[in-house]
């Protein structure tokens, strides 16, 4: 999928934002779960739980083929994610060179795949509109991106 690198970058930005935000609010919860649940609330509200569950299931199926550490993860009927933190609590949290926590590869891929499906169905403008409901502009800042961090 040609859009995947772009979505991967966007997933990195959102996860990085949540890692930072999570330090003070919910430190025990993984950034991946926080991003996922925000998407679940937002998409579920406008499209319905069943629509979100379908998208999430598809995204997880795609992600599992690229990230074997997601093999035990499941999407519940209400769209929530099961097994990510329970199976291996810290599997999706890694530390960068500076010692900051960051989301694991599996989490990045899962969120990127979910965003990719939104982009596919709704287009960039609407997808970003939806994301801006839950994340401030700062979350989309280039410094949170994979490229931004490398620079």
């Amino acid at each position, binding site marked *: 999928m040609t859009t995947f690198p772009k979505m991967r970058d966007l997933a990195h930005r959102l996860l990085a934002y949540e890692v930072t935000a999570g330090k003070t609010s919910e430190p025990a919860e993984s950034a991946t779960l926080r991003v996922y649940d925000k998407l679940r609330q937002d998409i579920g509200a*406008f499209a*319905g*739980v*069943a*629509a979100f569950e379908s*998208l999430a299931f598809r995204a997880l199926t795609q992600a599992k083929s690229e990230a074997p550490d997601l093999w035990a993860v499941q999407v519940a009927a209400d769209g929530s994610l099961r097994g990510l933190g329970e199976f291996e609590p810290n599997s999706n949290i890694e530390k960068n060179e500076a010692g900051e926590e960051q989301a694991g590869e599996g989490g990045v891929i899962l969120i990127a795949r979910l965003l990719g499906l939104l982009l596919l169905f*709704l*287009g960039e403008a609407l997808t970003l*509109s*939806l994301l801006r409901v839950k994340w401030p502009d700062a979350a989309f800042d280039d410094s949170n991106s994979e490229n931004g961090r490398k620079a």
Partner: protein
Amino acid sequence: MSTQDRVKINKLPTGVPGLDEIVGGGLPEFSFNIIAGAPGSGKTTLAHQFVFANATPERPALYFTVLGESAIKMLRYQQQYTFFDPAKLPDSIRFINLSQIVLEKDLGAVLGEITKEVEKANPAVVVVDSFRTMVRKPQSDMELQSFIQRLALSLASWQATTFLIGEYAEDELRDNPIFTVADGLFWLRQTAERNSIVRKLQIIKLRGQDSVPGLHTFRITDAGVQAFSRTFGLTARKRNPPRDRRLSFGIPELDKMLDGGVREGDSVLIAGSSGTGKSVLATQFIAEGVRLGELGIVAVFEERPEAYAERATSLGLDLETPQKEGKLTILYLRPLDLSVDETMQSILDAVQKIGAKRLVIDSLAGFEMALSPGFRADFRESLYRMIFALTGIGVTILSTVEVDESFTEFPFSTYSISFLTDDIIRLRYVSIDGQLRKIMVVIKMRGGNHAKDIREYEITSKGVIILGKRLTEYQGLISGIPVNSGRSEQKKEPSDHPQIKA
């Protein structure tokens, strides 16, 4: 009660081209409306247009989706329309899915959820799509009536204009509590006729509004729904008082036959068989108008505008320059799948755009053939409405029509449309002295004292030239096979065309 004591009902733009005119100037604010119709008839698109036209961040629109089309797919498709502005989401337009509540709970819970969201957002517009799926669960009539009434009251109290969208069949109109409570009922229909789809819109009721009755054609394009009022949007226009000004053809002898020219605001029909010069006369009429500063529109169906202008050049008439100067528009209309109302709307738009005073339709046969088969049944009625509307605002219309040449009859039109016209000029071939020559006669001129003469004419490089005076030496001219009466022509019989007033 005086007018100033009455409550003023604001009218909201529908966002649907042509629909404001049909609903009497706009949709009443705070009204509770139903959009009904079969699947694919354009209900959701129409609602979206209204939402995008009226939602603001201060007074947003809430679009509740229920079971039915997935909101994600709905947005995927709706954003293809040009009216869809993604920047309006989510501040001005919010989509909320009620499927779970509808599936798991009762109507009271649904009402509670809608009310909660409405209280939170203070919306100007509320849409429930599809309402039909929401009330499909078994419940008593009383429960349903109560739910609808409470919903209508709640949304009106919150000053929201509401649309409930539902897939209903026409036989459900009776005894349905939803339709009783609604202030407005919009019914969208689509039927297949031969190879065409005919879409019609009807405002079955709209409280407090002077909506245009009847079925109105509509079309769904990349701009969304576009409606075509049966009155072509001219009902609100003040009708021009009748004027006695005469419009010249630029052919002095013909003007004399018409008691000085065509009366302004008349509908003129030129009928004749192929090659008799109907289009030449029409071209001279429009060119003379342009020369005199009366802007014109020519609607052609059988040849392209370039060819039409070239043919005019061969008659010494320049149609290129006035086109460049915006004084003349030649419309080429070969819509094939368009309705007659859409085609006529194109003509009306062109007339209104340049303020045209003369309109040529060349020809009615081509016009009818250009329409999709499903709309041909409406042709005469729609033509009547357009002619009535345009002549009412002072536009003079000249239409050409081809008639079969018969040597036993003298038909004016194969379309039985002569009742639509004020004036009829008939052209025909006659066999005289071993030649096929052409004669012209003014058959009818409503309210005018036209000449009764039958005149011979020729078509030259200068257009139509009327020869001599009336043909008195022949009898049975209109049969096409006259007999020489032996009388020595014009000297003995003074022409009876009327005196031209100075």
